[in-house]
């Protein structure tokens, strides 16, 4: 099992396509993904480290391990206003992953450790597309590592908390208008800390309620590499090799979910996520040299978003269970400050999932998520770049979990 986790981690490309909801990626458990990405009211296993640390101590088994990966395949199309120009993204497949392990020390306490990738964005437009002076391609990824402790009372109530250490990478390329082949590449990495706290409550057998709050984390890139590929005649004004710093906020989330066992075999669940995107006001780049010429403040003006989710699970027998879900993810972006670096539209998500249990305790979890980013007219006013965008994304996922 350990070996498998390591393999998945090293094979992962750590970048993925944007799909709704800014640059957040909630694919931290295949069971949860299958049921509409609902997570707070469940005790599926170690994946509660992400979804709700409060639920971790209520996982019945002593040990739980879980790992998985998804493949994000998406395309965005852009129709430029008042022109016959259309462009498609050519983004690589994104592969967010997760790996968790937890140990129930005694009847009250459980501890766990998780590594997962809740934020990321990879968008590749053609280098000579019409928006090349805004963005050619961007790749953004973050890995969160979270040691967690959870405490429960009488199989009814649990609280838990995790400390989050986040590391992130960003790479941005865009064309510059000095000469036909001028461009700039910005590459940097950063880290910061945050937390994840959750509460789980089971008022009666068959009804679970979960609340989880994950703090915002401001990823600070310092001493990033800025490479300007510009005509040599400008090298005295703009140094070809420069350093930059920037901050990218990863917003806080508040999740509230309920699950109800309707029959022996059927379960339904609801969840609401508040995502505090309002923290993303502008993207500010500060350069070490020639700052007065190069420094820029780029408005984004995101707004908080609220996502409703619904899902159901059907347990056929001890070997097979099936899940389905749906949710609506309204874009946090601003009409006037919508940039093609994050093609985040009002998005409808439909999910399917199946778990197969070949031997007791081991579960093979498959999920499928299809996203429809609804067609909308958007503009990035500072660049006077406007048009209609639409996205379609499909995300198959596979995971293993072992509880014993």
């Amino acid at each position, binding site marked *: 099992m350990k070996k498998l986790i390591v393999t998945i981690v090293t094979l992962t490309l750590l970048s993925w396509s944007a799909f709704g909801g800014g640059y957040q990626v909630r694919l931290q458990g295949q069971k949860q993904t299958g049921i509409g990405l609902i997570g707070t009211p469940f005790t599926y296993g170690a994946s509660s480290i992400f979804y709700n640390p409060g639920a971790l101590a209520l996982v019945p088994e002593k040990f739980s391990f879980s790992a998985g990966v998804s493949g994000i395949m998406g395309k965005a199309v852009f*129709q430029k206003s008042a022109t*016959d120009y259309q462009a498609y993204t050519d983004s690589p497949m994104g592969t967010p992953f997760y790996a968790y392990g937890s140990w129930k020390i005694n009847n009250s306490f459980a501890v766990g450790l998780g590594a997962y990738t809740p934020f990321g964005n990879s968008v590749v437009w053609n280098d000579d597309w019409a928006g090349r002076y805004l963005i050619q391609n961007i790749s953004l990824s973050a890995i969160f590592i979270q040691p967690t402790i959870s405490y429960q009372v009488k199989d009814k109530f649990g609280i838990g908390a995790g400390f989050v250490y986040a590391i992130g990478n960003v790479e941005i390329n865009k064309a510059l208008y000095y000469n036909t082949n001028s461009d700039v590449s910005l590459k940097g990495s950063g880290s910061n800390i945050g937390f994840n706290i959750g509460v789980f409550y089971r008022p009666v057998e068959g009804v679970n309620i979960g609340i989880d709050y994950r703090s915002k984390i401001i990823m600070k890139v310092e001493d990033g590499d800025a490479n300007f590929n510009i005509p040599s005649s400008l090298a005295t004004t703009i140094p070809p090799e420069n350093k930059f710093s920037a901050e990218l906020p990863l917003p806080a989330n508040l999740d509230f979910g309920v699950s109800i066992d309707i029959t022996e075999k059927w379960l339904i669940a609801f969840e609401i996520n508040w995502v505090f995107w309002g923290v993303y006001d502008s993207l500010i780049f500060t350069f070490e040299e020639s700052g007065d010429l190069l420094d820029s403040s780029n408005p984004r003006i995101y707004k908080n978003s609220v996502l409703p989710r619904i899902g159901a699970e059907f347990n056929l027998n001890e070997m097979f269970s099936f899940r389905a879900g749906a949710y609506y993810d309204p874009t946090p972006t601003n009409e006037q400050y919508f940039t093609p670096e994050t093609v985040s539209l009002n998005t409808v998500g439909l999910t399917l999932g199946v778990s197969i249990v070949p031997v007791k305790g081991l579960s093979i979890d498959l999920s499928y998520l299809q996203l429809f980013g609804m067609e909308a007219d958007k503009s990035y006013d500072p660049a006077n770049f406007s048009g209609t965008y639409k996205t379609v994304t499909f995300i198959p996922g596979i995971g293993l979990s072992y509880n014993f």
Partner: protein
Amino acid sequence: MKYRYIFYSVIILALLNACKPTIEEFAPASGNADFSRYIAVGNSLTAGYADGALYKSGQEYSLPNILAGQFKSVGGGDFKQPLMVDDNGVGFRGITPVTKLVLGYTEDCKGVISLGPVLASDQIDPANLASVADQGPFNNIGVPGIKAIHMAVPGYGTLNPYYGRFMSLPTSAVIDEIAPVNATFFTLWLGNNDILDFALAGGEGEIITPISLFEQAYMATLNILLANGAKGVVANLPDPLNTAFFNTVPYNALVIQEQGDAAVLNAAYAPLNQIIIGAGSTDTIYFSVGPNPLVIVDASLPWGLRQIKSDEKILLSIPQDSIKCSGWGSQVPVPASFVLDQNEITEINTAITDYNTKIFEIAVDQSVGFVNINKVLKEATENGYVFDGIEFDTEFVKGNIFSLDGIHKTPAGNAVIANFFIEAINLQFNANIPLTVIADYPAVQFPTD
């Protein structure tokens, strides 16, 4: 078995399709105009003249060629231009043919090396001026340098080699080149040189064409364009004083570094200042450390010179080395041919207003479309534009609109203007012609070595 494969294929196709979003494509429409045969009539702004010369790639980025490219989606046909043979092209300094300008390194009289416009080569290819008349008729009837009043001059090609290159017959006038195209649609942008030549000469030795003569010549051209029922648009004239040519060298271009230098100049002008004060004028000549208004020739004053006012213009054509090293603007007054004074500026402003009023009246009268380019350039001067993340204003070199001659447009500048033409055409003829993508057009290129 077979059916199963078909079944799987259909599912895979459906999946692949589902992953590619589609948006309804732009629906081009010609409205109530016919773009099949388009003719563009005008001067250098129509010809594709840029960087002080007419050259091949400049012509390919000409305003009407960009428009013709967009007209293709609404039934537009081929657009034939009298192309030059190379990218150095031909411009004229006086009567001396020279190549186009490129951005390069120049060393001034003080040995300071800086980026500035330099000739692309010291030799022109004479083949550029050989006749291409046998390849006609041409859709681009833009003749650099032509005034409205020249349009009907027989044999005008012997006076203007740009027309001489494609003049059909030795006795042809430019307006004679219109009928053979049998155009269904036209753009007419004419009259700029009737005012601009006066401005370029600093108001010396040139006159602005009187409005009545302009109107007569303009109508003569427009009537020929309209004769076969063609539809089209006319553009008004951008105020030449908004171009980079008149706004790059500042009025206070005389920079004095040392207090001592200012004192020497002040002492030298002291006797003249006595005379000026004695004559009851306050217009004395005075220098201090920092930028100083240039001393210019003013023939209306008994003493013949004064310092330039902040709202007067120094032309881009002024030899700047003369200011730096030959005492121009300090010991030697700048010749009037490099200056537009307040009277000349008023004269130009009045003419622009009169001409543009007339062009608008004619457009309304004749039911042709109208493009307010004067407003566009004014907006570019005052607030600038941004398209596709590229900033446009009227600053020299950096402003992206003006090519290295400070008057004619870069390819991107032409593309911006083309989009304003298309908006006016769409409005007038209820058409839906796609705008062009500004990001695809270059502006001034910086040297890479």
